[in-house]
């Protein structure tokens, strides 16, 4: 029996006439940690929405847990609830995900929709509040929280359902460094839970921590697939898919130089091999 959670075969999706995904084929195995890497507009968020059965493919075949995801199948409450119990989706913008009057109601929303008994919901919500250190916020309105707090509430509201598969759309976007670090720590901890985690991101700095397998998306297509080391080591691919860029770098002496800014910062600062130093106000000097 296949251990694939998701199987996509030549999947395409278009917003009206604009093609967002074009012939995507991939397999995501149970327990794996996958990163969907791509620049803005590459189709990462659309792909996640397809994996969460919020959109359905225009062309091709998409299977989850061995069954095809289709609009007709999801008209059945049984199928819908069975899928929702297994797959959780954390949206990029927590504001769209937090729509209840209080943090407590927000975290209890999913279990209530899925018909959990009250006796099970109350302790589960308390547990989640404690786990994410947000017990003191339980009676606050979610829209009045800070960005980091909102993200923690959004994660708690999904994780309470203990989904087998967790889909995360740009989990560290627009967060302060401390909140980013918390989210990454959480994703690292998930390594031991056996959950399948699919993260859409363009943040190269977090890929090695959060994924074992990387799919690079470019203009709605898969441009490459490999381990984080393989992908992050492929400078040409990162440039071609707009994930890396030439970066001006300021030093303490007030001078600046340029190098490829993709992932690592431990490049040698050697005047002989590096881009010539220039004042920032001058025109950039290209390598070569």
């Amino acid at each position, binding site marked *: 029996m296949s251990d694939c959670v998701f199987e996509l075969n030549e999947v395409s999706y278009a917003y009206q006439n604009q093609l967002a995904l074009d012939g995507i084929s991939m397999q995501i195995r149970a327990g794996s940690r996958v990163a969907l890497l791509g620049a803005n507009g590459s189709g990462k968020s659309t792909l996640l929405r397809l994996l969460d059965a919020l959109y359905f493919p225009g062309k091709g075949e998409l299977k989850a847990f061995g069954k095809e995801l289709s609009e007709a199948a999801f008209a059945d409450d049984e199928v819908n609830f069975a899928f929702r*119990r297994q797959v959780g989706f954390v949206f990029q913008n927590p504001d769209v995900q937090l729509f209840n009057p209080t943090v407590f109601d927000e975290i209890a*929303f999913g279990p*209530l929709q899925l018909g959990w008994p009250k006796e099970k919901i109350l302790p589960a919500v308390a547990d989640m509040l404690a786990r994410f250190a947000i017990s003191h916020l339980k009676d606050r309105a979610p829209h009045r929280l800070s960005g980091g707090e909102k993200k923690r509430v959004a994660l708690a509201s999904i994780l309470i359902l203990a989904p087998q598969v967790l889909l995360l759309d740009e989990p560290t976007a627009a967060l302060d460094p401390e909140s980013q670090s918390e989210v990454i720590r959480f994703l690292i901890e998930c390594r031991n839970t056996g959950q399948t985690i699919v993260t859409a991101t363009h943040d190269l700095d977090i890929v090695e921590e959060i994924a074992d397998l990387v799919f690079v998306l470019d203009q709605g297509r898969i441009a490459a697939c490999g381990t984080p080391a393989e992908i992050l080591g492929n400078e040409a691919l990162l440039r071609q898919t707009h994930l890396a860029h030439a970066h001006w770098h300021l030093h303490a002496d007030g001078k600046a130089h340029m190098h490829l800014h993709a992932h690592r910062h431990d490049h040698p600062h050697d005047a002989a091999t590096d881009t010539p130093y220039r004042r920032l106000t001058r025109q950039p000097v290209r390598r070569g």
Partner: protein
Amino acid sequence: MSQHFAEKLSRGLLQAMSRAFAAEALSERPGFLQGLDPRIKLIACLALIVSCVLTHSLLMLSGLFVLALLLALASQIPMARLCTQVWLGVLLFTGAIALPALVLVPGEALWQLPLLHGQITRQGLRSAAFLLGRAETSATFAVLLILSTPWPHVLKAMRSLGVPVVLVAILGMTHRYLFVLLHATTQLFEARRSRLVAAMKGAQQRRLAAAAAGVLLSKSLQLSTDVHLAMISRGYRGEIHLLDEFHTRPRDWGILLCALAVPALILWYQR
């Protein structure tokens, strides 16, 4: 100097949001209506609104209005809030509709209108008073229900009374999207204000308002779609599920009986 349009609008939007938050706070206060089973409250409110429509007596209508005032007092709902948000608004809108009735309804003349060659009739005055009285009293009962009950409880009560799931879902979505829209509008006009360095002429302000309306429409459509998808993703299918269970106590049954008795008595009295 007159205030700038964008500034006034921003302030108005912020006020609207703070009023909505204050309404949430009112429903959490201890009070007579807040303590009732929402289902009972909903039926009682409907019965009292029907009573407003059924009665042919201004005295009875006044009695119903006084009842609404007493309920507001017992539920710690400020009169000032009812006055500014309900009575004035209804007076303006219904008043505009009722005004022609004063002269158009034929009957015994009370006052001759100078220049207009018309006269205010006793019957016209009575019709206008009924229209205004019914609108004001009914709106007061409806607003009392909303201010004393958290919105999700109103929706759940509607579902438990058999209101179709589609209708309840539409109401729920509308409520959420209003806030989404309000938030987006506030941000849009704050951003506009921050870039204003000179006064704008009337025509420019109107162009700005029209452009903003278009942007907001597409923006709110996108946001509301995302909110809906986020709800579906967590198992939402249009049905409202809440942790709070509704409990009907003897007092609730008593209130329901009294509320249902009002239209029944009116019908009996006017038979």
